[in-house]
């Protein structure tokens, strides 16, 4: 496991000093994928460089399996780096070495026997599904394959912590999904603690168990993804959901923003609500998915029923929370910055009868 303890990074001195990371605290257990999201300039890359010990923190520490690595002298620091595998953005492969040659690099640096290197590289290529591409050069590989090589290289020295800095940024959605599922598989098989840094919210949903939002060098919100998604007060939880623009409801119907409020909402809640209220509920927008085995989602529903209290009670009995909604839509990636706007949503939409 890896733990950050009051990690602080200040660039510059005196009047020019800029605090890029401000007393960060978090821990990632073995077998856990922890995502860090945040806007450009939040300090994500700086955090990555402090975690893999390419930069020394100004104060605070990086603790891996109980040992404080950040305060080691330079020589030992190099050895310590080997305990943390880093997957970079795609451009980090050696262009003049084959896939196998790239994966061999950390082993060569360490001075491992050529025979042993060959065996280990073969194993790793197999692991990331690239055995048939061993002798291909980076320019002959697709973006996703290059990232797999990068992942295999990061794993070459059997680290207990895997750090990924924007490893899926710039990949298409399908490729991202395949890289992400590989990471999850490796996390399970090798019991890795994974720190996954990204600015893409939908990737977080696919990959992470927990997530923290970094802004101006501070973690402003964090938690388990499932909890955040079912917590209607969580700005981060809302930001993680895709933005939905509802269909226009029929005349006289009110809009209701429905969010999953518990971990066991029945799958047929829409039918049940219709039965309970004695009118067909129209589904105007919805996203429902299973995150780490728990159903989560949000929906915009149109209902004619007069009494808001009655409607909210009906939803509440199913583990859902209903709030009067607007046509503007819900949550979403692009409302990340000032997500409180939805909190004081205007009165339900009323059509002239």
């Amino acid at each position, binding site marked *: 496991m890896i733990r950050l303890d009051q990690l602080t990074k200040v660039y510059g001195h005196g009047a020019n000093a800029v605090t890029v990371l401000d007393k960060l605290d978090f821990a990632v257990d073995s077998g856990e994928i922890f995502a860090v999201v945040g806007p450009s300039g939040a300090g994500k890359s700086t955090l990555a460089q402090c975690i*893999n010990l*390419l930069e020394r923190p100004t104060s605070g520490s990086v603790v891996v399996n109980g040992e404080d690595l950040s305060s080691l002298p330079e020589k030992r620091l*190099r*050895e310590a*780096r*080997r305990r*943390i595998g*880093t997957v*970079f*953005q795609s*451009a*980090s*492969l*050696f*262009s*003049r070495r084959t896939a196998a040659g790239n994966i061999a*690099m*950390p082993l*060569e*640096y*360490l001075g491992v026997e050529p025979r042993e290197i060959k065996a280990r590289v073969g194993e790793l290529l197999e692991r990331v599904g690239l055995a048939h591409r061993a002798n291909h*050069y980076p*320019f*002959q590989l697709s973006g996703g394959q290059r990232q797999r090589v*990068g992942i295999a*290289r990061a794993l*070459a*020295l059997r680290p207990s912590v895997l750090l990924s800095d924007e490893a899926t940024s710039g990949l298409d959605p399908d490729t991202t999904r395949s890289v992400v599922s590989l990471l999850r598989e490796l996390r399970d098989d090798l019991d890795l603690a994974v720190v996954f840094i990204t600015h893409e919210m939908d990737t977080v949903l696919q990959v992470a168990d927990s997530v923290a939002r970094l802004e101006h060098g501070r973690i402003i919100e964090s938690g388990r993804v499932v909890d955040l998604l079912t917590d209607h007060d969580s700005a981060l939880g809302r930001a993680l959901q895709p933005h939905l623009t509802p269909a226009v409801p029929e005349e006289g119907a009110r809009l209701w923003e429905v969010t999953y409020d518990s971990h066991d909402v029945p799958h047929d809640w829409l039918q049940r609500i219709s039965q309970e209220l004695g009118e067909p509920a129209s589904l105007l927008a919805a996203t429902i998915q299973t995150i780490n085995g728990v159903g989560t989602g949000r929906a915009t529903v149109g209902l004619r029923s007069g009494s808001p209290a009655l409607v909210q009670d009906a939803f509440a009995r199913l583990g859902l929370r209903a709030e009067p909604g607007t046509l503007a839509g819900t949550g979403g990636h692009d409302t990340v910055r000032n997500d409180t706007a939805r909190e004081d949503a205007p009165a339900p939409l009323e059509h002239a009868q």
Partner: protein
Amino acid sequence: MNLPLATAVIVPRAGDTALADLPGLLVPAYGETLTMVGIVMAIVVLAGTPLGVALHNMAPGGLFENRAVYAVLSWVVNIGRSLPFLILMAAIVPFTRFVTGTNIGIPAAVVPMSLAGIPFFARLVENCLRDVPRTVTQAARASGASPLQIIRTAQLGEAVPAIIGGLTINTIAMIEYSAIAGTIGAGGIGYVAVTYGYQRFDQTVMLATIVILILTVALVQLLGDRLVRFTTPALRLHR
């Protein structure tokens, strides 16, 4: 059209060296040129590469960032680069004599040529290293590479094709310098061109030396391009 123009410039005349005598004159001279350039390039690569690596890594953001040392190195290299070769050669005659004990012949030419070539090559190497993506060196560091391993694998290793390109440019410059050095009696094709072609107006020799120099430069360029292709997987494997 072209023929009268060419003959207007270079007209073989009576008294010129006979064609049959050309090989006897030019082959030894060519050998001297190759020796001179060969020795100089060996020195230039051996001294210029470490200097280029030092420049790159002393510069801000480098592995051994040191602004003061970088400023001094950079200044020294600039001096070497700013003097026209003829002036450099003349200015360091006492130094050349001190090093080689003579101020004529191949040894005397090697000293100024190396002094001009080393800073030139160092700057070329520095530029090539600067073009290696930062993420590649970061990846090497994160993989546990020592500074020397980073330099060898990530910096020089990735820059090989670019450095070969620089080496080609440098070799061609040295062929040119060897001709200038020829004027102070260093021998070689340049010496033949000046003494026969310029001082005695021997147009046959002039023409022959020009052809030889053009072919040599073309050959070096061709060889350099081939090597760049060969060392760049994306070029080599694209037929």
